[in-house]
């Protein structure tokens, strides 16, 4: 693969988080997002949320480029902040998982 080649990043929304992309709150919805070298976790999520207004509203802190309170994000099965940040570049085969907020109870 050349350095300018496009590749795919898997973005998966599970259970309640599927309601933000038209799901019924169960199972999972998977998107194979096209990405290019230099794209970051933020770029991929921004591109996806631009196509789904409820996700856009839930995912981002209003008026900023940072995450809001409502959705938890993991990259390659590790929560954001452990191995990746929003600014980390994505690579072919990366998997981003979105899940509902932790509520307690």
């Amino acid at each position, binding site marked *: 693969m050349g350095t300018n080649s496009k590749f795919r990043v898997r973005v998966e929304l599970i259970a309640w988080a599927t309601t933000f992309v038209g799901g019924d709150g169960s199972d999972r919805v998977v998107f194979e997002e096209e990405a290019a070298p230099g794209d970051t976790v933020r770029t991929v999520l921004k591109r996806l949320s631009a196509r789904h207004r409820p996700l856009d509203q839930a995912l981002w802190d209003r008026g*900023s480029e940072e995450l809001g309170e409502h959705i*938890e994000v993991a990259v390659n099965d590790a929560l954001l902040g452990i191995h990746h940040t929003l600014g980390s570049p994505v690579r072919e085969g990366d998997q981003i998982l979105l899940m*509902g907020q932790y509520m307690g*109870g």
Partner: protein
Amino acid sequence: MNDNPYGYAGRILRVDLSSGAVWSEPFDAEDRRKWVGGAGLGAKILWEEVPAEVGWDHPDNRLVMATGPLAGLPVWGTGGLTVVTRGAMTNGATNTQANGFFGANLKCCGYDAIVVQGQSREWVYLHVRDDRAVLLDASGLLGKDTWETQQALEAATGLSGHNLSVYSIGPAGEMLVRFAAIQGDYGHVASKNGCGAVMGAKRLKAVAIERGKRGVAAAHPRALYAAADEIAHSLKTDPSTKSLYQYGTLPGVRNLQGMGALPIRNYTTNLWPKEVDEKAWEARTLREGFDHRGHQCSACGMHHCHMQVIASGPHKGELVDEPEYEGWAGAGWAIGLTDPQQVSWLNTRIDRACVDVNEWGWLCGWVMECQQKGYITERDLGFRLEWGDAEGANRLLQMVSRREGLGDLLAEGVKRASEKLGGPAAECAIYAMNGNSPRGHDHRSRWEELIDTCTGSGGTIDNGPPVFPTEFGLPARISPQDPEAVPRSVGVMRGRRHFEDSLGACVFTTRVPLEILCRSIAAATGWDLRKEEAMQMGRRTAALMRAFNLRCGIGPEHEQPSRRYGSTPADGPVAGKSILPHWDKMLGIWYETVGYDRKSGRPLPETLRALGLEEVIEPLWGAGARA
């Protein structure tokens, strides 16, 4: 100050079980504004009336069952009850909540709180009907579980549903099990810090409150309705609380599993078992997997806490209460039980015997792991208990709640039991060194709750997850393993939960921007209340509970997790990430943020002064510090 008790009944019911005396006192305007109700009022009473030498089982301990200014008004989830006492697990302050109808019924009888002191010679229950509050013989209720007790009192009064709220202890409370709880209205549990054992020590089996005939007046009824609508709208439409509105805390299992925060088999793994169908644990499936119906609390429109019927297995047809997330965790995942039908059944057995489901999960999971590893033998326990054995877990529950055999030691809770057993068994137990029971999560992936549990002064976490942190200048989201941002966030948010716990409202229906909540309280009481004052009210209560605990000998030397609680996850989303290398630094940031002294644990004099707690400075810091 205006003494018109808008939002309040304006009276506190006092009960002395030693003498049998029952009387009422005013809850005056100054105290209402300073302490609000619930947790705040309870903290004040503990501080003023329970000296250091009065332990949790001493007759002079106080059991405060309080509500607040929203209870009985048409705001969602406002049947709330807060229990404050010196509890059996920590021998320090307890702050624990339940809902149902208690708060609304009590207010309509003309009281904002019940304060119980003394110890009865014989078992009694308290019956409140409007102005008439009497202690009645409870000998016929002894040995009954909490649901049986409620049914017996329904039969005795001819009342049920919202017309009669009954909070009682089960066999566990009668036997002074240290993590015994107080359960009411079929499935609502004030569960923390052994408040049920305190009630048992007083020989008070139940409190039954008929729906009173008095109304609760709001200062500005139209504004109250508008604020109540705003709260309901926020809960129904906010991206996160919409799931609470539809399914209560049921989505928690799948969400927390994805974060590595589902406590699986006593923290031995964070991986979802391959043989377990993920779909079976989604909110909708959990609810629709049972014949179910709504079971709303007073004035509430949330679809939370349904009643359900076991659909299959040996207990098919039994009526149970739908577990909260923590029921699915403590009666299920923590002990390796992954059949929702069996978890739901066991969860109700726990409510009926009446122990804290969180502590139960840590205790039962610990016994199961110890059996697997040979630290507790079949002979020690009297039978073999494997991971996921629902019937065995219930057998253990009955042993513990009646203190039979090894159950007598286990009834002391997992901290004391594991310390007594010692050796490698002690390494497997999940608890905080201050005696607080961790909530039903794997906090190794939620450092904010781990530090909150270890510094908390009420028997468990003080804060819970942050609610609308941007209102307080915090970022909307921080990394849950950021050793600087986490303690700062926990410190800044400290007080919000204490304030909510003082309102007579449910913690899930107060999960709205604090500004909206303040509008409802302002409309109810006539106060000019802003979120800054609300936070100050909550922080005042938090500081006073800490001061009380320090007086009880619970200081910063106890602020750390047990070895297993603070261990490094071996797998899952936070594998290999340990909090311990950051612990001292995190505590330092937390102390600095909340304005307490790092070395002694005491709230600093300037902090106490800013919170309007000048009267606490001298007892904590000595003469001369007050100036």
